[in-house]
């Protein structure tokens, strides 16, 4: 399932072609030409780059000092702290549970497995506000099991675990499927214990995929709004996440503050994805070299 694919290694490049084929003009090969390239650039700029540029520029409206003040305001700092800590917890839980679930889906077999497999993608297809309502019905004031977690940090964790469920699982599954069992069996026949095989063979192979999935989960979690807005309670310094803080600032016309915290969120997300990309290309290069 390719839906929330990693930003790691791209698909395998096309097989080598005879040199002569290249000589035929690329322009006539159903390619794209400068016009198409220009259209794509204009499109991306208008839709993605310009709006983000507007945010970045606005955040520095009061200079760098103003930017730092906005991020350093106690409520802003608290919101960012809550967001980052909760997202980190969520990423860690996903690392463990996501890998475990991927393992069970790949190596185990039981009736109904294909349904469970499809279920994994449900949080990805479900609107976030629906996730919030769904979790609220079970853990909120009308909970049938008497669990009242709304407006607490555990509620944030549960909501974020729900929406980030697919990332690590879908990241690890394909790698696990491709894992060459022969190496494991050879090691086992040489007397290696399960724990050793796990530590030295399986986990190192899975590590980049796990990391990539966790990074995507983390990035998704820090920006999440819809799924936490109802169940989180938005209590400043306790359960208010960065996106809620930003929304409040914009609604009371404090654009610079909202823009500044937005830029902070963007910077964190980009750094995480950038690191992932580097790891991903290094892994791809290693795979190429090993071939």
């Amino acid at each position: 399932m390719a839906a929330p694919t990693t930003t790691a290694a791209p698909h395998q490049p096309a097989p080598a072609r005879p040199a002569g084929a290249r000589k035929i003009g690329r322009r006539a090969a159903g390619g794209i030409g400068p016009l198409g390239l220009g259209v794509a650039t204009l499109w991306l700029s208008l839709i993605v780059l310009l709006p983000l540029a507007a945010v970045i520029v606005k955040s520095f409206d009061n200079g760098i000092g103003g930017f730092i003040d906005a991020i350093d305001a106690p409520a802003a700092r608290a919101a960012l702290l809550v967001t980052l800590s909760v997202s980190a917890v969520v990423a860690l839980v996903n690392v463990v549970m996501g890998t475990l679930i991927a393992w069970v889906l790949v190596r185990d077999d039981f009736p109904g497995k294909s349904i469970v497999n499809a279920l994994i993608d449900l949080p990805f297809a479900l609107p976030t506000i629906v996730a919030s309502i769904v979790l609220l019905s079970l853990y909120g004031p009308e909970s049938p099991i008497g669990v009242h977690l709304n407006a607490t940090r555990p509620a944030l964790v549960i909501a974020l675990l729900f929406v980030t469920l697919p990332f690590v699982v879908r990241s690890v599954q394909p790698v696990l499927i491709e894992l060459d069992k022969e190496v494991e069996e050879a090691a086992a026949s040489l007397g290696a214990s399960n724990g050793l095989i796990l530590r030295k063979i399986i986990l190192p192979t899975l590590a980049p995929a796990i990391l990539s999935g966790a990074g995507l989960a983390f990035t998704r979690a820090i920006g999440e709004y819809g799924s936490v807005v109802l169940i989180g309670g938005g209590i400043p310094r306790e359960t208010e996440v960065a996106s809620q803080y930003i929304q409040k600032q914009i609604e009371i016309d404090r654009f610079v503050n909202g823009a500044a915290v937005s830029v902070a969120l963007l910077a964190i997300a980009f750094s995480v994805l950038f690191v992932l990309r580097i790891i991903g290309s290094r892994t791809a290069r290693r795979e190429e070299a090993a071939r």
Partner: protein
Amino acid sequence: MPAFDWFTNRRRIAAGAATALALGTVLAACGGASDDTSGSADSESSAGAVKLSLVGYAVPKPGFDKIIPAFQKTAAGKGITFTQSYGASGDQSRKVEAGLDTDIVNFSVEPDITRLVKAGIVADDWNADEHKGLPFGSVVTIVTRAGNPKGIKDWDDLLKPGVEVVTPNPFSSGSAKWNLLAPYAVKSDGGKDPAAGIAYIKKLVGEHVKSQPKSGREATETFLQGTGDALLTYENEALFIERDGEKVEHVTPPGTFKIENPVAVTKTTKHAGAANAFKDFLYSDEGQTLWAQAGFRPVNEAILAKFAKDFPAPQKLWTIADLGGWADVDAKLFDADNGSIAKVYDEATS
């Protein structure tokens, strides 16, 4: 495997896209405004009918749910449909200022209309009539859990240790401003001792208020979901949730504040006649009775007397006039940069 050739059939793709688009547009055109399952009167909007847009603060929907159908039955209201939008008073006012088109505005506090007067959207004589643009109002009340387990009866009880109070954020909500003005007026004896008033607010906001709901309605939701021991809100909102079966009760302190909610017709309306007719209906006997039935205190004294059971007269009812009028109060207490209450809020919560 059979060839999947709809991609190569241009006509079919174009037809498909056109159908989807047409379907979407047709459906959108015959959508109405009401979210009532009982099928209220404004479920069809035919071309040429007058459609009035109402932008309101967070809590008056129960009132308008009664008023609008009644208005549509009158001669002046025949064939008129409505779209309604409700939200935090300050946020709604800012949205209209930023370009949201509307015919009628009904906010919680006067400054949210003044903002539109300054922006040229509402005429500056909106409150020149005998009722000063205020067709209904309420009083500030305290809502507690059923049985009032913490024994909260007055403002001082809110400062008891361990009592958590829910009140919205005054930067976005009109309800919040009323909620804070009530104890301020009581403690400062009508503004004569501002320091005492601010001292109370500081203690209340600093130690007993944790959540920051955006609007009066969101505050109610937060309270109903289990947060807090006491909710400060409009009496009409308290009546609304009690009548809805929620396990709560309300107690109005002996000294409280008179809430007056303004209504105005915009200058930018394309249906001045219909909009003004609707506004006038709010003041009519029938309109005033409907407001009273919905839990809002009417301005018509005779009708208010008829509903005295729902609307007990508090011992001391402070008004905005006692404090010097909204222009003064808003500048001195709620101005985002200089207001004393605003500063207390900022320090305690940002």
